[in-house]
């Protein structure tokens, strides 16, 4: 005797009360609605992105040229270029990544794999979460106070290192949280299997957990670096120059950055500067895409369904 029918007639007896919807027609209809919903949701993001990019590209791409990429900023919009800003951003990106990724992954590993379940650990967890919401300009003030002023002799004051360290602190919570979630998703059986075979915790991490958590960690890194590359306010506070006559020669050098150049162009009255700003944004997005594609390639390589 069937418990819950789907329209199949039952011998004798009344239809039974069921916890589940019994009509397949309703279920399939809901399914269709849901499928449309998820598709539309994804499309919303893509459509907005496309509109934005097309709008910028329309203005910016014609302005792109070798001179624009290798030129210095100028009072004349036609002569302005983004060379020092581009190099500055690249320097910042590399140093920020080198600092924040190991720190972030390391912190996540500690919090998820090593830390005992005490109030102290919980405090650190809440702390990390909280730091993700601190506005970027406060990080700028922090960077100014500590890296530029206090540690000035080591960092060179208003230098690339100060800027990169400030950005690294800014994006650290994102890397930590994303990596942590990736580690959390790994079933304990993997860990226990490793321990059963006599491996130490670190050997289990290095051999199994890290590769499995890598995709999630990379997602966090992508999102984090994307944010870092586009930040303006903290860099201004920490001393990135708007106009500079030279390119950075090392991590202790003065510098400019793409978002600052863009912000400067955008606030000038001449229309031609608005076009230059659009071109600058295109350059920024290309750098972003290149950085992301490295991480994405790595992520695809390491990701497999459990």
């Amino acid at each position, binding site marked *: 005797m069937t418990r819950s029918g789907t329209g199949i007639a039952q011998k004798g007896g009344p239809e039974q009360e069921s916890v589940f919807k019994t009509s397949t027609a309703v279920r399939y209809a809901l399914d269709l609605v849901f499928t449309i919903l998820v598709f539309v949701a994804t499309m919303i993001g893509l459509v907005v992105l496309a509109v934005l990019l097309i709008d910028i590209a329309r203005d910016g791409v014609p302005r792109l040229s070798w001179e624009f990429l290798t030129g210095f900023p100028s009072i004349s919009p036609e002569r302005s270029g983004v060379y020092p800003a581009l190099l500055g951003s690249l*320097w910042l990106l590399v140093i920020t990544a080198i600092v924040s990724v190991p720190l972030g992954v390391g912190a996540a590993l500690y919090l998820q794999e090593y830390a005992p379940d005490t109030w102290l650990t919980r405090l650190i967890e809440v702390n990390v979460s909280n730091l993700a919401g601190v506005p970027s300009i406060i990080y700028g003030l922090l960077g100014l106070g500590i890296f530029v002023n206090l540690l000035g002799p080591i960092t060179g004051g208003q230098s690339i290192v100060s800027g990169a360290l400030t950005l690294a602190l800014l994006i650290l919570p994102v890397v930590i949280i994303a990596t942590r979630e990736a580690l959390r998703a790994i079933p304990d059986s993997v860990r226990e299997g490793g321990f059963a075979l006599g491996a130490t915790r670190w050997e289990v991490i290095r051999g199994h957990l890290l590769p499995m958590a890598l995709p999630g960690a990379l997602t966090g890194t992508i999102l984090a670096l994307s944010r870092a590359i586009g930040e303006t306010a903290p860099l201004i506070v920490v001393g*990135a*120059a708007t106009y500079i*006559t030279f390119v950075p020669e090392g991590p202790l050098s003065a510098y400019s950055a793409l978002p600052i150049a863009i912000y400067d162009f955008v606030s000038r009255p001449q229309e031609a500067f608005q076009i230059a700003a659009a071109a600058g944004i295109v350059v920024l997005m290309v750098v972003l895409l290149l950085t992301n594609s490295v991480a994405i390639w790595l992520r695809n390589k390491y990701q497999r369904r459990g």
Partner: protein
Amino acid sequence: MSLLLRTFLLALTLALAGCGGRGQEQEGDGQSQIAVEGSSTVLPITQAAAEAFNRQNSDVRITVSGAGTGDGFEAFCNVDTQISDASRPIKDEEADRCEQAGVEYIELAIAQDALTVVVNPRNDFAQNITLDELRTLWEPSAEGQVTTWNQVNLEWPDQQISLYGPGSQSGTFDFFTERVNGKEDESRTDYQASEDDNVLVQGVSGDTSALGYFGFGYFEQNQQRLKALNVDGIAPSVETTQSGEYPLSRPLFIYVNAQDLEEQPELEEFVQFYLENLDQFVEQAQYVPLSPEAAQEAGERFNNRTTGTAPEDALGAEHKGNGK
């Protein structure tokens, strides 16, 4: 993991290679480097000067930042910068701090900005506005009260007026409130504010009942979208501002560290070059050059190394400072 490391190292090498191509010899940190910070309004003028100077003296490294006049003075009094861009004169507290730090400065007026009062081009009834009318419109007691055009001038229609203006943190605001309302920072607060003048242009040009005020350069670049009002009968223009007729023109300054001027020959060269070709830079930056008398006075102050602020600047406006 080592692949990641390798990739980062590759990127780092590329970045390093990129800057090896162009760039000057590093002569030792801060040796021939001139650091300028301060107002983002004055930044374009200093930038134009630095650009032209750099063409002839490519070994001098100049950085210019626009974090704000206040931040600029802070860095200046910390001896972090040699020149400070300022869209307002130095305030007492800042001057005191410089004095305590042993920093002596030379105040040089370098340009003027004409504050332009604009309305939408479809506004056909307003041609001129007096300073009194501006005050009626913008003073603190107007908040929530003065909301129609005819409350400002009886000849104007009984229509809603929407106001646009710079935010309370900009030098334009400081100057306007002091000149029109009598006291700095005194203004009604119920208006559309933005620190970015381009945004104000956007606002006024899209709103037929709008009235706003901002720097002359932004009006000049958008003349098809905006209509400028005469103030007290004088139209805003380079000529009327330079001659002093236009009542709403504000001075822009640079402050130079007097001691560094003596110790750093390239700094002296730069400021000299700056002042000699001032008109060219000011025009490139879309501001109004000083009158010949004011320019001469600035030159004299520099040549005589006169430190401290002037009690009354060449434009005839009294302002706060050490020499009050």
